[in-house]
């Protein structure tokens, strides 16, 4: 049995999101099972069915020197935005 990962698109133009997986002996079975499990209730407009082996997984991100200046969490935007808004005299979108 081969494991196939299934991605589904909810509406045309939207990004495909991982939906789950199906086990199947080959791609024709995988197509049938993916249709049944992720498409028959009108919940998808398209599916991508990919053998798990074909997915290149990357799960290690080396940051030996802790270059946190590469990361956005070094910049607390919230406070700065608030100050800027006060200067401009406009409220945050949620306050409107």
């Amino acid at each position, binding site marked *: 049995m081969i494991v196939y990962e299934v991605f589904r698109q909810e509406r045309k133009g939207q990004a495909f999101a991982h939906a789950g997986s199906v086990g199947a002996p080959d791609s024709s079975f995988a197509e*049938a099972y993916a249709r049944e499990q992720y498409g028959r209730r009108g919940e998808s407009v398209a599916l991508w069915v990919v053998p798990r082996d074909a997915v290149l997984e990357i799960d290690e991100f080396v940051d030996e020197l802790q270059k946190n200046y590469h990361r956005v969490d070094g910049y607390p935007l919230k406070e700065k935005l608030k100050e800027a808004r006060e200067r401009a005299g406009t409220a945050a979108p949620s306050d409107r």
Partner: protein
Amino acid sequence: MSERAQLLLPIADDELVLGWRNSEWTGIAPFLEEDVAFSSIAQNEIGHARALYQLVADELGTTADELAFDRAPEEYRCSQFAQLRLVPDWARTIARHYLYETADAKRIEALKASDDPEIAGLAAKIEREEAYHRMHAEMWFERLKDEPRFVDALEELRPLVDVRGELAADFAELWEEMTMVRRSVVGATW
């Protein structure tokens, strides 16, 4: 009974009885994905039966439920081949599924060409689901076609596809199970 009812009832009976038989695999199919797919096919068949019974019921002034579950066993006109209880024999189940879908495709095609717009319209709707049933049957056929057990099953079942009139020995028990909790039972609260 009109010619139209005589045309539609055997088809509705086939779909109901085969749907019922296939649903016996729910929970015990060879693997989970197949369980979901085969159960879904069974459910579709019963849905087709309901729609076909409805057409006949409108004409006869009765209901789809009454046609499905309130007739005497000898009034059913389904093919003998659909009546057989094949659990737990997967090879024979798939052989029947394949033979049925192949035969059903021709029947639906003929109904689509009907002069009766209700029949033609319903057949077109049914055909859209049957296309997936055939895809499912064909992929299993491709996979099992060289398996001796499957080849034997095809040979055994093929002559039974269009045997009607006399009920199979398996039918009495199925009829009991199928109609046991029917809505018309006196005192039923469901």
